[in-house]
């Protein structure tokens, strides 16, 4: 730490990389890909170094930097990471090289230039790091909105047949949410100016504000609306299936696996600490929406015929779990939700990537166009099944830890919500296994004749995900150790403590 601008460096590296990639001469596609991959790997290595240096019991925001930016409005360039931001940044920097590797040929057929695709991915990485690292709320807002630009072009220039529609829908929906947030942001600034004398956007100062309860509710809603669209929460989700299905699989990974986490991250990082009373006031409504999202997303996923849309709807269900855990306001719920954000990133990335491998071979997203893949491509089918099992939160895999923590944390305070949410585990089994059955089992049909099994590049893309999913499943402690202190702080700011067991026992286990 000691003053070295780690986070700025981490954020700038991909941006510089993207400039280099974009500046490469036309036609040097392979070089563009290699440079992009190299840069993303360096970024990952840097993030890893930072994660190792991070002290889980230390200051709230580590690697902190602060420089005045627009002093007249109290805007500063302030960055820093707590445990929650750290694990999300780590996840993002792991996924970017995987996406580049898995999507090696994704841009080859597009009208736009190949190098643009990879340059945009790197720009997006900068925005993602920025949005998670920002400790100035205005800066957060800037990154939050700026992220839309590379994604808009990634979908609109490289996606499927309906890409323009999907891109515009995504953009308008997100801008609408962003607008509400901007209004609330200005309101927050005004309140801070009233209370502190000078207006500020600095997170640590805003957290201590005492906002009148009416105002607080409106401000909360402004922020929450933006996050609920981004995450997305039912019923603000319909942009997601279109965007996920009509972008390339790599873009879908970054969009659903990483970008959407900004929504749930915003809830736990901004909504709860800034507006604790309003958060508690709206909790019942949000819990209901979350539970509806869990069951609704899963049921609609079962009925999908397009595999990319299917994954999008499973994510609606999973975001329901994440929101549920955050608003249960217990240690287990919120730590579970944070871990869920990471695990969902990996498992959904896996599903989109494997789906992308399938689509690349067959040229169709329709589930009915497949059958018997296991006969011809056992490794591909095996990876597919494993990712599916991660998605249904099989005990022993990473997502089980987070999903169970969310459920148990919710149960201690809101048992009814937890019971309904638990029904989601049956529906998850149905959408995963039905999909797997239709695609991978049965006799090897004409449809899948000549399918190659996973190639070396594809294996390098998928293997790290499999390793992570199993490793975190059996040993989540390093992540939880980092997440727990951050969550405790949030709970403290909201003024919530965990419910106490009715008949507490001293554990009788051998130590």
């Amino acid at each position, binding site marked *: 730490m000691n003053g070295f601008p780690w986070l700025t460096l981490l954020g700038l590296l991909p941006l510089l990389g993207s400039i280099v990639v974009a500046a490469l001469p036309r036609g040097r596609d392979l070089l563009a890909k290699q440079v992009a991959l190299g840069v993303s790997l360096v970024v990952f290595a840097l993030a890893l170094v930072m994660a190792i240096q991070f002290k889980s019991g230390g200051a709230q925001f580590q690697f902190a930097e602060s420089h005045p930016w627009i002093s007249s409005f109290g805007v500063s360039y302030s960055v820093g990471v707590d445990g929650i931001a750290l694990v999300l940044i780590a996840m993002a920097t792991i996924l970017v090289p995987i996406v580049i590797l898995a999507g090696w040929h994704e841009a080859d057929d597009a009208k736009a230039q190949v190098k643009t695709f990879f340059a945009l991915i790197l720009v997006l990485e900068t925005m993602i790091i920025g949005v998670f690292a920002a400790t100035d709320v205005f800066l957060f807002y800037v990154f939050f909105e700026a992220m839309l630009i590379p994604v808009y072009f990634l979908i609109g220039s490289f996606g499927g047949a309906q890409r323009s529609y999907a891109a515009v829908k995504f953009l*308008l*929906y997100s801008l609408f949410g962003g607008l509400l947030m901007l209004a609330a942001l200005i309101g927050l600034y005004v309140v801070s100016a009233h209370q502190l004398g000078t207006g500020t956007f600095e997170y640590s100062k805003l957290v201590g504000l005492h906002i009148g309860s009416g105002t607080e509710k409106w401000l909360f809603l402004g922020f929450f609306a933006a996050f609920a669209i981004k995450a997305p929460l039912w*019923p603000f989700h*319909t*942009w997601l299936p279109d965007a996920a299905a009509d972008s390339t699989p790599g873009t879908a990974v970054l969009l659903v696996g990483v970008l959407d986490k900004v929504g749930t991250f915003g809830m736990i990082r901004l909504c709860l600490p800034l507006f604790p009373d309003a958060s508690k006031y709206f909790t019942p409504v949000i819990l209901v929406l979350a539970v509806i999202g869990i069951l*609704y997303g899963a*049921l*609609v996923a*079962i*009925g*999908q015929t397009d595999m990319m849309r299917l994954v999008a709807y499973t994510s609606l269900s999973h975001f329901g779990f994440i929101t549920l855990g955050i608003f249960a306001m217990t*240690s*287990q719920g919120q*730590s579970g939700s944070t871990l869920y954000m990471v695990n969902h990133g990996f498992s959904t990335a896996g599903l989109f990537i494997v789906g992308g491998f399938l689509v690349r071979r067959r040229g169709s997203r329709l589930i009915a166009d497949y059958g018997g893949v*296991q006969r011809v491509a056992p490794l591909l089918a095996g990876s597919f099944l494993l990712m599916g*099992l991660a998605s249904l939160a*099989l*005990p*022993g895999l990473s997502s089980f*830890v987070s999903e*169970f*923590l969310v*459920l*148990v*944390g919710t*149960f*201690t305070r809101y*048992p009814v919500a*937890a*019971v309904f949410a*638990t*029904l989601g*585990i*049956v529906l998850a089994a*149905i959408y995963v*296994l039905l999909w797997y*059955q239709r695609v991978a*089992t*049965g*006799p*090897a049909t004409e449809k899948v004749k000549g399918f190659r099994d996973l190639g070396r590049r594809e294996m390098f893309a998928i293997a790290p995900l499999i390793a992570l999913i199993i490793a975190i499943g*059996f*040993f*989540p*402690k390093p992540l*939880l150790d980092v997440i*727990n202190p951050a969550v405790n702080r949030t709970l403290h700011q909201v003024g919530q403590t*965990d*419910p106490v*067991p*009715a*008949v*507490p*026992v*001293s*554990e*009788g*286990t*051998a*130590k």
Partner: protein
Amino acid sequence: MHQIAAASGAFSLLWLVVALPLLGAAVLLLGGRRTDAWGHLLATALPVVSFVLGLVMFFGLLGRESTARSIGQHVYSWIPVAGFHVDIGLLLDPLSVSFVLLITGVGSLIHIYSIGYMEHDADRRRFFGYLNLFLASMLLLVLSDSYLTLYVGWEGVGLASYLLIGFWNHTPEYATAAKKAFIVNRIGDVGLSLAIMLMFAKFGSVSIAGVAEGAPKASAGTLTALGLLLLLAACGKSAQVPLQSWLGDAMAGPTPVSALIHAATMVTAGVYLIARSHAIFDLSADARLAVAIVGVVTLLFGAIVGAAKDDIKKSLAGSTMSQIGYMVLAAGLGPVGYAFAIAHLLTHGFFKANLFLGAGSVMHGMDGEVDMRKYGGLRKAMPLTFISFIAGYLAIIGVPPFAGFFTKDKIIEAAFDKGGGQGWAFGIAALLGAGITAFYMTRMVVMTFFGEKRWKDGAHPHESPTVMTAPVAVLAVLSLVGGAFLILGSRFVGWLEPVFGPAPESTHTIAPATLTVITLVVVAVGVGLAYWQYGTHPVAALAPARVTPLTAAARRDLYGDDFNEAVFMRPGQYLTRFLVFFDNRVVDGAVSGFAALVGGLSSRSRRMQTGFARSYALSMFAGAAVLVVAVVLVRI
């Protein structure tokens, strides 16, 4: 609850019992084709080592005071979040070591058998990888010291079961069977998940010892809820009514799988769960009653289904359900019954594995034919298989001195001894079940091994190789002596006493000797009826179409699937279709509608851009006027 001692000495190797088969699975499944040549040998050797370790631990426990036979091993900290602390920890006690020996013992034998059975299968390595994965999961299930790690094993065996039922999933029905098994089990998992949440909410602990400690202080409602949730879980895994429907279809898996997973071990996990949670069930009579009712209903249900099937494996599957029903009934009888439930579980593990492997041997010799109407007279072609099958047959119908006689007799006796109307109802049902068991097993033996040969011209039934007959022979011997060893002198009851506590003295409703005679008479009637129907009349090549409604119902699994399809599946499909429509038209429709509205408004307002300076001047003037009025109004 006795003090749990930390593992030391030989016991410190406890984790290896689980880790060895897990290693095998990892090597075989990740190693790929490189391990094709020797993978099955490694996969067979590792469970044998686990079995030997299990034996060492068993004798180690035997050498300790009966009050000091609980050994705990803390492996590592798994999920620590505030008050929720779950570690990967193992618990070795008389109950878990009994399971370890069953799982690794029968498991090793079935691995050996599979070397022969799967010899010509191109995917034999993958098969052995899955089998090892199953063993590791099952061992984790029974050795876990907390419900959450138990859940990991619980779901691991479910996964292995899914993979193995669907091992030949290029046949679409098999893939469907695998999926069905997993989904039905997930319904049970909802019960287990909720039970664990409730435990944490009430006790702040999900360890087995912690829950046992908290149970006496919990409210009656909590205990009953916990009991019923655990029962739901047990119904899924152990194929008990109403979650029984998957087991018959699960016979799609290779026969060694049916023997190991869907007869001897995994499907008994529900019984283990109930017995392991005895601290809860001991305190809730309502939960116990529910358990006993599920057991009684299933023992009759399975037996009736088993009596109507012509597919030898499906008949055995019905039998498995029924036999587990006996165990569940025993567990539902409370402290008197736990030890008998586990004893029957062990002997059933021996004789049912024996019967399944025998059936597999018959299928092996008959080119995969499973229809008993196409067997007949096989005792001459397969003498070894015949002899061992007869040992299993005598054991399951309960002829002394074979194993089932001792263990099932005790359950029937305990059911009657419950006393009152319930005691009579349970007892008579258990007795009736014994009669039906004798009927369907005799039917199976007669149709398969006796009478005229009815097989097709191309068939050349032959005895299986030694690698297959030897493990069956071992199981046949166990089917003969296992029951007497466990039950005589209350050996097994005493062994489990440190876990379940001393069994209360009960007064006999019917004198044991009399009851034994009655039971044997009922069994003899079942045997006689079956022999009369199938031994003295020719067996039709096709199943008769004109049958009693009961037979027709039993052939359709007593309409279990029809019920599920009508009540859950089809409404579920309609709901799903409706929601997809709803999402596209209503939810997204609202979004598109809003977009259209904005678009419409903007095209209206676009008309104001006329390009005439005079109209712009007019609108500027109007705007200024509005502003002035507004300012004036605000000032006032």
